[in-house]
């Protein structure tokens, strides 16, 4: 998963029939990143160095350096380069896979999350348990904090409404109300934040039968607007709170919990373990 990938455009209709309208995969030119991930990091680093130089020199050359530095930081942080755009050049990556699950799965997601500011994360795991069991466990959202490290709590208010509280960088917490916007039992749960969320987000979890009787593929797609914008997401990349990694670890723990009834720990003593005695659906 590459943060610089904009992904196919979400259109605000929910298709339930199996014909894929491939035209919806066209990505409008202006929302697509045209700078590759590594180059973005380099761009921010170079920009910061130039700004530093400018601040030290405090003369006209320094001013020019600082201005260029500012541009490089912006370019790295947003993933968009005006010069590349003007030249028609791009080092950014397009989606490598255009698979059926990219079919529009969230009603109104485009309206919930600002595509220009959003981070998109997509991760899948194969779990050797039946689809209905995994679906039922996930559908009870109050179970999720048991394997999602960053979730503090989830409170289910009505069958489609719930209130979420999560840890944010810097020891803060963020809260939002979520509404289920699409639900097909044993196949998909899709939600979006409503009202005035601290973090606007929309996501979906799909459940597929894995080929050859290898269990169930659980795929999570999440779009969210990071609190401090794209720059915040880039910075969190360096502090290991990067959302892609978070989702990957959450899904790994979900798998452990569902397959073995516990979250694996190598702790030698109870006090060293964060996950003691977690058993599913007790």
């Amino acid at each position, binding site marked *: 998963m590459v943060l610089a990938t904009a992904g196919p455009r979400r259109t605000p209709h929910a298709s339930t029939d199996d014909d894929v309208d491939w035209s919806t995969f066209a990505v409008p030119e202006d929302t697509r990143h045209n700078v590759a991930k590594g180059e973005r990091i380099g761009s921010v680093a170079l920009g910061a160095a130039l700004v530093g130089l400018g601040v030290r020199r405090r003369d006209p050359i320094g001013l020019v350096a600082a201005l260029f530095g500012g541009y490089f930081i912006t370019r790295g942080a947003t993933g968009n380069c005006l010069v590349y755009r003007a030249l028609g050049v791009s080092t950014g990556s397009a989606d490598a896979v255009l698979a059926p699950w990219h079919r529009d799965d969230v009603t109104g997601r485009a309206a919930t999350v600002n595509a220009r500011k959003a981070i998109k994360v997509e991760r899948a795991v194969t779990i050797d348990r039946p689809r209905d069991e995994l679906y039922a466990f996930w559908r009870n959202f109050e179970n999720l904090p048991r394997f999602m490290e960053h979730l503090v709590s989830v409170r289910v208010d009505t069958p489609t409404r719930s209130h979420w509280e999560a840890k944010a960088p810097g020891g803060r917490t963020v809260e939002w109300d979520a509404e289920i916007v699409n639900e097909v039992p044993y196949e998909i749960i899709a939600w979006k934040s409503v009202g005035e969320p601290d973090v606007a987000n929309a996501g979906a979890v799909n459940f597929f039968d894995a080929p050859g009787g*290898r269990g169930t593929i659980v795929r999570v797609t999440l779009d969210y607007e990071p609190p401090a914008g794209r720059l915040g997401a880039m910075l969190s990349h360096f502090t290991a709170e990067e959302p892609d990694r978070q989702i990957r670890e959450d899904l790994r723990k979900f798998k452990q919990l569902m397959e073995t009834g516990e979250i694996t720990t*190598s702790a*030698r003593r109870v006090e060293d373990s964060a996950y003691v005695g977690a058993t599913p659906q007790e």
Partner: protein
Amino acid sequence: MRAVTWQGTRKMSVDTVPDPEIVQQDDVIVKVTATAICGSDLHLYNHYVTTLEKGDVLGHEFMGEVVEVGKNVRSLKIGDRVVVPFPIACGRCWYCRNGIFSCCDNSNPNAEIPEALYGSSPAGIFGYSHMYGGYAGGQAEYVRVPFADVGPIKVPDGVSDEQVLFLSDILPTGWQAAQRGDICRGDTVAVWGCGPVGYFTIQSAFAQGAERVIAIDCVPERLALARDVCGAEVINHEATEDLVELLKQMTGGRGPDVCIDAVGLEAHGHDLLARADKVKQTLRLEMDRPTVVRQTIQAAAKGGRVSLIGVYGGVIDKFPIGAFFGKGLTMRAGQCDVQAFLPELLQKVLAGEFDMTSIISHRLTLDDAPHGYEIFCDKKDGCTKIVMRP
């Protein structure tokens, strides 16, 4: 409790650390009665396998008595005498259910480290770095054993610890090494490395139908064991100019049908490439020394099989892909799926089909561990295998 801890490259100590306790309800606590230093522990000792932290308790070959049992454990009770396999396996994932216990999907809590290196993560291992889970090992008085219904095998009273201890690793490991060579009746098998794993690989190769086994090493006492105890023909590779050519001549120009690498990433060699590998490994330009891998491929008969059981961790240079392709070889590798072999091998051990004890050269206490690591690593004092009692 007392435990053997890693303190840095070639620095072991024996410390008092907190006793383990039941953490998950399918754990047991084993009071260790015998434990061994494995050749693969030397890769930790020399810090070729990384992600170790000061104070980590090592050891993955151990057995003992169950002294505490979690609520959900069904197959063990207090007082049972067990041998514990070195890979930790959940028994529930697709890999475990298909017998690939060493690739358990759930037993490594630090799976993201090997995932970044290997694409996906193998199982957790007792006392074998944080990349393999960060579990405390068996060179200690007590060990927390997770997923206790899946790993430990009960052994009868009346059989000595030394008779069954090596079921934890080196016997099944040697057995799997031979098995992954798909030995057919009448095959000639060459085994690189006559350490403890090589010792059991040779015995397993004969048990699986090999007509001849040629064993290669440079340590005289190991060669003697391979020849006198296991019945192999032996080669001291330091006394030969061209090992591959010698193997060809010994096999009438064909080369061995099966070549097994029981050496791994710290191979010794004396040709130019081997010296270059040593330099590159020291400079961390190459992570593993592939001398033996190259020799096995070069020596193998056409259509032959190469089985790697010696530990490798990273990437190598100059893999002889042309010879591998041109001769139509098959190569298999992997950590041992100990759990898959234990019931069968325990029966064979009890029936006396293996020589389990001739390899043991030193019987020490836990407090002697730092000295033990040193002599085992440097092959001093005729050291071939060390068993310690807490």
